[in-house]
Structure formats: C-alpha cells, structure tokens
C-alpha cells in the first residue's frame, strides 16, 4: 500500500511539473507585452529594453522556463510585475482566505447535501420536489447565483455587507453561493448511491439476519453508499481551493481567485504562474489525500490486482 501511494506521489510531482511547463509555454505565446504594460504606453524603445532586461524577458523561452523551474525548486516564484512584491508573499497572504471559503462552502455542501441524499434515498419514492429544486439549482451559473444573492440579501435587504472583507458576515453569502451548487450535487449522488445499496443483495442478507432496520442502515447501507463521497470531497476541495474565481470576484472575497483575476488583467505573469503552481500542488495533494482515505475505507482498493 505504501509503495502504491509512493508511486502516486511521484506521478503527482510529474503532473505538477507538466502543468507548470505547459502553462508557462502557453503564456509565453499569448500576445501582449508585459514590458509595455509596466513601462506605460508612451515609453520609448530604450526604456522598454531596460525593463525587459530587468525582468529577464529578453531570453529565449527555454532560458526563461529553466530559470523559472529552478526558481520553484528554491521556493522562489518570482516577483510581481505590478506590485513589486515576491509572489510567494502575495499568495501566502491570500491563501488562508480561500481556504476558509473553500472549507465553509464544502462543509455546507457535503453535510447538507449528504443528509438530504440519505433522507431522499430512504423514502420509498424519490422526492419530486427535491429533484426539481436540485435540477433548478444546478442549472444556475455560480456567478448569477452570487450576484442575485448579493443583490437581494446585501443590497436590498442590507443583511450582509456588500463591500469586501473577511469577517464572518462577509463569509455567509459566498459560502452559501458555493453550497447552493454543491448541495444538489451531493444530494443527487448520495441518493443514487443509497438506492443502489438498498437494492443490493448484501442489504437483503443483513435484513435476513433479523437486524433492526436502523442497524441495517447504519451498519451496512450508509458506509457503502457514502464511500464515493470521500473521493468526491477530495476532488471538490481541490477545485474550491484553487480559488473559486467567480465567487471570490462577485463578493470581493480577498482570496487567490480574486488575485488571479487581477493578475490576468495586468498581464502580471509571475503572479498568474504562481496561482497555477499553487493550484496544481493543491489538486495533486487533495487527490492523494482522497485516495489514501478511500484505501482506508474500502478494503477492495487496498490490493493491487493479481
């Protein structure tokens, strides 16, 4: 088992490297001259050349890529073109905010969604009301939902602040926006899982033993039905953590997503690359954690097939 995880970790490192290289190359070919962006539209050729030399923008793609990659290994993600601060500092400042929002949104989604899914799954016929609400919520894009909530509860009803910040009051609306998408998703998956497990022969065996209904559900049904949720949480955590861009921007939540949007507008390559690196690391780490959890929970995943 440890060997398996070790291999997965190594492959994860390769994935991160691949993502970084690919993004770097893509950014290189994107039109737009950062030197001009920094020096201003009226700068002359000499100033531009000076800026480029300072930022090492005059090397070939290979040289720049190499110096960037060796920088990552040293923990140096470069310096923001616009803010003149090390990228690592900027990211570190923003990471906690994104983490709080991600955890809040995900926790709401998983707990509420799973509970609804279990309830719906235990009913003899699925709740049509819940199904309709689920489809409706899943169909609304996150940013629309976000703006709508902000408009109603922030602006019209003045229940929540409409300016940015990281207080508890600021957290509510963006977390709810995330949850309004996450809850129907988890509810549907858990509901389907419950139905499948309830119809499974091993559930019938449990009933045949004379176990009371509650024991059948807690001892046999729930664990089997909720096991896929663990993998989903791992993947979702990675997505939420990489900075749920729309939500952060709508609510001016000062996380990585918002930083990313700003950097994009500024063509601030080091910051953009920095957010990509962070995202890649988080995705790989979260996947690895989900895999480990699953191995722990489901004995069938522990062995390599013969």
């Amino acid at each position, binding site marked *: 088992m440890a060997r398996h995880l070790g291999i997965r970790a190594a492959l994860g490192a390769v994935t991160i490297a691949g993502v970084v290289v690919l993004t770097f190359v893509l950014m290189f070919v994107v039109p737009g001259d950062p030197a001009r962006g920094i020096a201003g539209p009226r700068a002359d050729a000499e100033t531009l050349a000076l800026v480029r030399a300072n930022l090492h923008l005059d090397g070939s793609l290979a040289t720049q890529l190499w110096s960037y990659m060796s920088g990552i290994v040293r923990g140096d993600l470069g310096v923001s073109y616009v803010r003149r601060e090390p990228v690592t500092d900027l990211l570190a400042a923003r990471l906690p905010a994104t983490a709080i929002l991600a955890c809040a949104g995900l926790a709401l989604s998983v707990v509420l969604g799973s509970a609804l899914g279990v309830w719906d799954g235990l009913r003899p016929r699925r709740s049509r009301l819940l199904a309709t609400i689920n489809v409706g919520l899943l169909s609304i894009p996150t940013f629309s939902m976000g703006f709508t909530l902000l408009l109603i509860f922030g602006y019209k009803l003045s229940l929540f602040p409409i300016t940015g910040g990281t207080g508890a009051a600021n957290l509510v609306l963006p977390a709810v926006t995330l949850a309004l998408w996450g809850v129907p998703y988890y509810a549907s998956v858990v509901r389907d899982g419950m139905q499948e497990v309830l119809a499974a*022969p091993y559930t*019938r065996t*449990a009933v*045949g033993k004379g176990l009371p209904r509650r024991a059948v559900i807690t001892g046999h049904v729930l664990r089997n039905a909720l096991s896929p949720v663990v993998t989903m949480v791992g993947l979702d955590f990675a997505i939420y953590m990489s900075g749920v861009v729309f939500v952060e921007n709508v609510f001016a939540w000062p996380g990585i997503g918002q930083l990313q949007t700003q950097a994009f507008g500024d063509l601030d390559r080091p910051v953009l690359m920095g957010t990509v690196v962070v995202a890649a690391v988080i995705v790989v780490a979260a996947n690895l954690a989900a895999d480990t959890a699953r191995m722990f929970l489901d004995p069938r995943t522990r062995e390599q097939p013969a």
Partner: protein
Amino acid sequence: MSADLVISGLRVGYGDRTVIHDASLVVPAGRTLVLVGESGSGKSTLALAAARLLPPTARVDGAIRLGDVDVTGLTGRALRQARGRLIAYVPQDAMAALNPLHTAGHQIAEVLELAGATRRAAAVGARELLAQVGMPDPEPVARQYPHQLSGGMRQRVMIAIALAAEPEVLIADEPTTALDVTVQAGILALARDLQVRRQTTLVWITHDFGVVAELADAVAVMYGGRIVEHAPVTELFDRPVHPYTRGLIATTRDTREGAPRTPFHAIAGSPPRGAAPPGCPFHPRCGVAMPQCAVELPLPEGVAPGHVAACHRIGAAA
C-alpha cells in the same frame, strides 16, 4: 423438536405479473426437499417468499406455516426474531450477498451478537462456525474480506451466517451452481452432515439432477410458476410421470451415459418468459401434448403413495 414446513396455495406477483400461480407442498421436519426448476419456474421467488425476503412490492397470497407459526403473517418484532431462527436463506451469488466492507468473521459474528453474545464470544463463535462449515483453518478466513476469498469459501461463509442462529429450516438457492464440481462435492457433503448433526430441515434449489440424486429425500419440480410433480426421490427417478421431469431426467442420463459425438436427448423450445400460455404451462414444449392441454390447466393428482403430478395424461391411455 422441529416441525413440518407447509406451503399452501402460495401465489406471488408483482404488479399485474404473476410469478407463482399456485404452489403447495410439504417439507417434512428434518428432511431435505430439493426443488428443481429453470428460469421462469418461480423457484427463487418461492424460496424468498418462505424466507420473507421478497421486496415490499411483491403481492403474496396463500400461507406458509412452520408448525403452528404462520410465517407469512409475521410482522415487526416477531418477524425480526423469526429471521435466522426459524428460517434462514442462502442465496446463489455469495459475492454479491456479502458486505464488501466487512470481514467474513464480522459478518458471521453479527448474527451471534444479535442473539445476545458478547463481542468476544461472537468472534470465537464465528471461527467455530467456519470450522463447522468445513474451513480447515478458520482464523485467516475470518479476518479476510469477501473479495479476498474464493467462490467456494464465500459460499461456506454464507452458510455459516445462515447457520449461526441455528435455524429450523435452511433454504438454499442454487448454492453450488457457479462452483467447480470438486467444490460442489464438498458443499453437498456439508449439507448432508448438517442434516445428520442438527436435524435441520433443508430446502435446496437446483436445476441439476445430480444434486437431486445426492441430496434429496423428496423432490418437487416447478415449471411456469407451478409445481408440476412432487415425489420421494427414488420414486421420482424410477417412475417420473410429468413429461418435463421425464425430459430432464432423460437428458441428464443421456449426457452421462451417451456415446461421444452423438445427439443429446433434448426438450424442444424454451422456458416461458413473461405470461404463461393458457392450459398447461408446459404444453408448447410437450412431445405428448393432447388438445385438452392447450385449454385446461391440469391439477395435481396422486399417481402413487406420496407421488403427485399435474398432467392430463395421468389416467389417459399412455
């Protein structure tokens, strides 16, 4: 002191589809009844009905009694207490019937704990049961998960679970069909042994007349949701009456004894899918069908002591 299992006028359906039309039989206490049938015969439904494990959508009429207990009428607490103690069930697919997330030992011990044993006592009891069902080395098996065990071992685990509460009646639905013949021989020996040691009443479902020969005291043959013949085993082999039974026995004998590369004795047609035709359910495939067979359902008649068959040819000139 065990009682006879009596099934009277059993009728089972889902929606407007009837799976068992009218089944009546008696399994004498401590004896083995082998139920023979193919797809569409209703044999598995009958087993589940007796074990009270049919899905809630099933409509059940008729009665199943074990001594003075009305099995079909049990509800709530009485039903839960009867499970495993009065009637236990062993399904065909042991892999699907075992919880993949629990060890074999845990799943057996669960039954013992339900009966009041402490966790430790139940764990010990589980290993004893595994030894009783023929596992030479119970300890590693108890600690393994279902997917780590072979087919034969899984089936023995299912039997151990069924035996844990010491049932009066054990109903097994084709437990050896998917197993190798050497493994099957071991399970059949186990079944015989159980009868001797515990006097358990056995209802064993199969389509294999070899298993019938090895295990049965009495045989019931099902076709199209009805019992078409019912007799003590030697009587059935020596003097089968119903054309379907005769066809099956002849095919089995021919397969064992016929010369290589010569045609097999075969029954034409396929078992019914969906609604059975009017009249005798077997008549479309019957080589000796009479005009009456397509119209009128034959009722079970005695042909010899203890031997009943449902066929219009009984009494008619052969």
